[in-house]
């Protein structure tokens, strides 16, 4: 299938998922009640925000995962590798348990972002040679250290704080602020996508290994660090918005790569759109399946993503 046609198919799927995200939810709202007295129904308004949030978070995680997998040449690489989830978890838990959440609505996401960025910087500072493999190992180490510290914090916390931390770590689109969180994340996603489209040739070459990329005119060490930092930032921003949502950044790029293969220039936008569709559908499912107390989106992504991934694992891309 031609690249433009592939993008159109994914775009249509994303639009359909977005419409479903607005139409369906815990409460049944007839179409006639979407607009009341000239204003948008507040529940519909909330649905629009969380659907847009799911799209931006899903696309960001998929793009981040695509870059991680390409640069680290590992299909198990995922956006949280370089200590992002551990650092963000520690930041968010610290904010909740140490009482910083009382500072305001944005304090927990802000601390999560700070924790993720701090863990990331620590990895880049601690790993001297900065090859893909060493950064990966450094990320696992820093992530493990952060997770251990998080466990210590949880152990010494009150039970009500613990519930908040656990709920946040399972991921949710409920509390995304459209102006202060969603808009900057969308801008970052667009900027990262455009940059990656320009650098897709370099990403392709890096998939053959750093020496091959060097021999074809890519400053492999510098590009590895830039791409991993960008992918980590995308993941960190999504964590600060919606908590830790697993599987999307691991499964979606893998599936898109398996289905369409070829250059990253060709699969970048399909992967972003597929990530958006995946998370919008997971969010809808979480709201519809359990309307009284909705399922955390991270749980839905794992429950849906795992069997789909295993099914696709047994199919391979047909030769051109």
């Amino acid at each position, binding site marked *: 299938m031609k690249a433009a046609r592939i993008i159109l198919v994914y775009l249509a799927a994303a639009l359909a998922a977005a419409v479903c995200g607005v139409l369906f939810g815990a409460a049944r709202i007839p179409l006639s009640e979407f607009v009341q007295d000239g204003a948008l129904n507040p529940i519909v308004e909330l649905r629009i925000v969380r659907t847009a949030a799911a799209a931006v978070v899903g696309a960001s995680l998929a793009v981040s995962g695509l870059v991680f*997998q*390409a640069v680290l*040449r*590992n*299909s198990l690489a995922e956006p949280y590798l370089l200590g992002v989830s551990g650092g963000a978890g520690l930041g968010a838990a610290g904010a909740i348990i140490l009482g910083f959440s009382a500072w305001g609505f944005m304090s927990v996401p802000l601390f999560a972002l700070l924790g993720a960025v701090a863990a990331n910087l620590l990895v880049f500072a601690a790993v001297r040679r900065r090859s893909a493999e060493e950064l990966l190992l450094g990320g696992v180490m820093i992530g493990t250290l952060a997770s251990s510290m998080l466990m210590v914090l949880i152990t010494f916390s009150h039970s009500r704080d613990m519930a908040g931390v656990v709920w946040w770590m399972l991921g949710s689109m409920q509390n995304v602020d459209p102006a202060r969180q969603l808009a900057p994340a969308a801008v970052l996603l667009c900027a990262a996508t455009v940059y990656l*489209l*320009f*650098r*897709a*040739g370099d990403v*392709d*070459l890096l*998939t*053959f*290994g750093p*020496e*091959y990329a*060097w*021999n*074809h*005119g*890519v*400053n492999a060490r510098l590009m590895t660090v830039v791409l991993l930092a960008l992918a980590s930032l995308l993941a960190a921003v999504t964590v600060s918005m919606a908590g830790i949502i697993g599987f999307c950044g691991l499964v979606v790029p893998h599936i898109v*790569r398996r289905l369409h*293969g*070829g*250059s*990253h*220039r*060709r*699969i970048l936008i399909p992967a972003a759109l597929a990530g958006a569709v995946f998370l919008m559908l997971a969010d809808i499912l979480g709201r519809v399946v359990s309307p009284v107390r909705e399922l955390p989106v991270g749980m839905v992504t794992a429950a849906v993503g795992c069997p789909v991934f295993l099914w696709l694992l047994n199919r391979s*891309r047909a*030769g*051109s």
Partner: protein
Amino acid sequence: MKLTAERLVYTHPGACEPLLNSVSLEIAPGQISALLGRNGSGKSTLVRLLSGYLKPDSGSVVLDGRPVSEWSPAERVQRLAVVQQHVDLPLTDYTVRETVSMGLSGVSRLSGALSPEQSDRLGRTLDMLDLASLAGRLCGTLSGGERQRVFMAAALVRSPGLLLLDEPTSAADPAVTMKIVSLLRNLAPEIGILVVTHDLQLALDCAGYVMLLHEGRIAAAGTPADVLTPETLKPVYGCSFRRFDCEGRPVILPE
């Protein structure tokens, strides 16, 4: 255009002794040079130093009048192409055409579209390496020898002035080896070529200049007739060799 290495010293990180100790060589257009040596003698490391991928402890590598590290990556690869011995297979399986076109410079960054001149050059390179019929195949489905030719095509598609080949025939059958020898001979008048190989016969058949790397130094260098002799090879490889003529063609074999 030429590539000159002066007194290169290189020690692997963590090693006590240098792997390469004061190695000097020159690669100039119009000549095929061959670099021979035992396993682990540092041949591939020397190629990495020449390409600028590794930095030497001391010594210099000068490409076309400037230290290799001072060229921008894009400028460097226009002058110098390297074909590695081992290339990792990527997660994404690319077709032969996609892989070879990655070697082209100046491809539109956003669309990836090739200009008519680039398409023409790509077609000629695929023909030159007998890859035209495989252009749509995924690289993961190719044999080791076919894949080696794909990577060679990706290096040659830029029409570089200098070409470094690390074990270009290690996965090739005799027919493909002869094809590669003939290709290198055809290219040699225009470009400078360094072939790293274990195949003494390949060096004898196609090289005009041969270097023997042993214990971190160039132990012998000169014409194949001078260097590829039983007396020179025995101390390097630790076994005896026999050299004889077969229908006017020199042949060298280990005994």
